[in-house]
C-alpha cells in the first residue's frame, strides 16, 4: 500500500567526485514509524539524510515524500516540501547569534503569519515539549549544556509540527542517562504527534529503546531492514558484530 509509505527512495546514487557513496539504493520509511539507520562509519548515513532533504543532489534516483517527488526541487516548490520535515542536526546547528527561543521562532517567522507574541508563546511551548525549562528561552546556545542544546534543536525541528522528523545522531556525546531521557522524549513525541522519524545513530541503546525498524547501510546499499530481533538473526558479519558484540549484548540484556 503506497499511502503507508512516507519516504520512498528509489535507485539513489550519490557521489562526491569519483567517490560513490550510494549505488542504486532503495529504502522505504513507513508512515508513523521510527526507522533507525545504522552502518559502519563512512557508509553515508548522513549523506543519505542530506540526499533525502535536498542538501545533497543525487546523481540518479528519486526521493518521494508522501508520494510527491522531491528530488531536484527549487524555489517555492522546495520551500513548500520543506514544511513536511524538521531536521535536527548532529551538534544542534542552532544559530549562535540568536537566543534559544528566537531559534525556535525562525521557521515560524519564515513560513507562517503568526503574530509575534503568539510566536513567542508557541516557541516556549515547543521548548517545554522538548523538556526544557522556561528559563532556557532567553539564553544563548553557548550558555547551554550539550543535552540542552540537543533539546533546543529538537524544539526548532518541531516548530512547524512537521509530519516527518529527521534526527542525525541525537544521542551522540550525551551521557547515558541524558541519552535515555532523550530516547524516551523522542518516543513520546512520536506517539503524541504521530510523527514519522528517520533516525541516524550509532547508539545501540537508542535503537533498542526507540526504533520500530532498522535499516543497515553497507556496501553502498541498504543490506538489511527489519525489526531488531530479525536483524539479530541476520548472518551478515558486520550486523552480527554490531548486535552480538559486547555493547549489543548489553543493550539486549537491558531490554529484557
Amino acid at each position, binding site marked *: 500500500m503506497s499511502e503507508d509509505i512516507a519516504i520512498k527512495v528509489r535507485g539513489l546514487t550519490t557521489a562526491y567526485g569519483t567517490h560513490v557513496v550510494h549505488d542504486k539504493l532503495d529504502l522505504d520509511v513507513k508512515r508513523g514509524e521510527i526507522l533507525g539507520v545504522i552502518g559502519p562509519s563512512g557508509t553515508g548515513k548522513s549523506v543519505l539524510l542530506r540526499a533525502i532533504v535536498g542538501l545533497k543532489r543525487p546523481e540518479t534516483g528519486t526521493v518521494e515524500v508522501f508520494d510527491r517527488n522531491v528530488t531536484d526541487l527549487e524555489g517555492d516548490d522546495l520551500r513548500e516540501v520543506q514544511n513536511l520535515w524538521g531536521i535536527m542536526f548532529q551538534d544542534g546547528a542552532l544559530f549562535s547569534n540568536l537566543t534559544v527561543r528566537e531559534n525556535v521562532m525562525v521557521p515560524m517567522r519564515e513560513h507562517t503569519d503568526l*503574530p509575534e507574541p503568539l510566536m513567542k508563546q508557541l516557541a516556549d511551548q515547543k521548548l517545554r515539549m522538548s523538556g526544557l525549562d522556561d528559563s532556557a528561552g532567553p539564553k544563548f546556545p553557548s550558555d547551554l549544556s550539550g543535552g540542552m542544546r540537543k533539546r533546543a534543536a529538537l524544539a526548532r525541528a518541531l516548530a512547524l509540527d512537521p509530519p516527518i522528523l529527521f534526527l542525525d545522531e541525537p544521542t551522540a556525546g550525551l551521557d547515558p542517562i541524558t541519552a535515555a531521557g532523550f530516547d524516551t522524549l523522542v518516543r513520546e513525541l512520536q506517539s503524541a504527534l504521530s510523527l514519522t522519524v528517520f533516525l541516524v545513530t550509532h547508539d545501540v541503546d537508542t535503537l533498542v529503546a526507540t526504533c520500530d525498524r532498522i535499516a543497515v547501510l553497507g556496501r553502498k546499499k541498504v543490506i538489511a531492514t527489519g525489526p531488531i530481533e530479525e536483524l539479530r538473526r541476520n548472518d551478515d558479519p558486520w550486523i552480527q558484530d554490531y548486535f552480538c558484540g559486547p555493547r549489543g549484548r548489553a543493550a539486549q540484556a537491558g531490554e529484557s
Partner: protein
Amino acid sequence: MPDRPEYELSTDASRGRLSVSGDWTVHTIGKISEQLAAEDTSGFEGLEVDCAQLGRLDTAGAFIIDRFACRSGGGTVKPVNASEQATALLKQAAELRPERDDEQNKKEFGVVDLLERTGRATMHFIDETVETLSFLGETIMAMAHIVTRPSKMRWTALVSVMEDSGLDAVPIVAFLSFFVGMVVAFIGATTLSEFGATIFTVELVGIAILREFGVILTAIILAGRTNSAFTAQIGAMRMRQEVDAMTTLGLNPMDVLVVPRAFAMLIMTPVLTLIAILFGVGGGAFVSWLALDINPTVFMNRLQSYVPIENFWVGMSKAPVFGLVVALIGCRQGLMVGGSVQSLGQSTTKSVVQALFSIIVIDALFAVFYLELGI
C-alpha cells in the same frame, strides 16, 4: 488547500462551549488567534470544545485553544466529539502550560535610564582601561621571562607573525605613505606659494612625515590589518576550545600566543615606520620636483640642513610603542571571545576601535611629552 479555521462560542449556564471547525494548524491560525484572544470570557467556569467539525489540529492549534480555556476560568478543557489524536494534543497542551503568563519586560527610555547607561558605560570604560593595563603588565612579565630564557621562545611563530604582519604589509604601507607625502607637499605648495615661500615645502614635508605621519600611518594600517587578524585568530581558537586544550597540555597561552606576536610587532613596526618615512619623503620630493621645480638633490640637501634629525628619532621612538599597543589589544580581545560567533564579531570590532583610540591618545601624550622636553 487547508480549510480556514473557524469557531463559534456559545454559553450554556456558566459553561462555555467552543465549536471549532476547519484546520487549526500553525499555518492557518495567524488571524484567528487574535480574534479568539479578544473574546470576552467573563463568567465562564469551564470550557467544552466541540471538535465534531474539526479538520486537522496540531500543537499550535491545541495551544491557542488551551490558552483560551486558561483564560475562561477553571482552566479545564473538555473535548467533545474529538478524535483520539485531538484529545491527546489538547491533553498535552494542558500539561505543558507555562507556569505564569510572561510579563513583557519593557525597555525604559527615561532620563534615569540615560543616566544609568552613562554610568554603566563609564564604569565599563574604566574597567577596560584597568584590565588592558593589567594585561600589559602580564605580557611584559611573560616577555621578560622569555628574554631570560631564550630557549623557550617560539621562533617559528615569531618569524611567521613577522612575515604575515610585517613583510606582507610593506607594499600597502609604502604605497599609502607615498600618497600622503604627495598630498602634504601639494597642500604646502599651494599655501606657501602665496607668500612666495614654496621652498619651505621641504621643511613641511620633512617634519610632518618624519615626526608624525610616517609612524601614525603605519600604526593605523597595522590596527586595521594586523590587530583584527590577531583577534580573529585567537578568538577562533578560543571558540573551538583550542586555548583550553593548550592550557591543559601545560602550554601557557601567554607564551605561545601573545609573546611571539608582541615581539614580532615590536621588531616590525619600526621597520615599517622607516619604510613609511622613506616613501612619504619620496612622495613629497616627487611632487616638489614636478609641481615646484625643486629638483631632488636640492630637496635632499635642504632636508639635511634644515630638518633636525631629532624629528626622525621622535617618530621612530613611537613605533615600538604603537606596535606593542596593536599586539596587546588584538591578543587581549581575542582571548576575551566567548563561545558564540557574535562575540567574535564584537571582539574584533572592539579591538580595532580600541587600537585606533589608543594610538591617537598615546600620540597626543607623546606630543606633550616632547614639547616639555623641548625636542
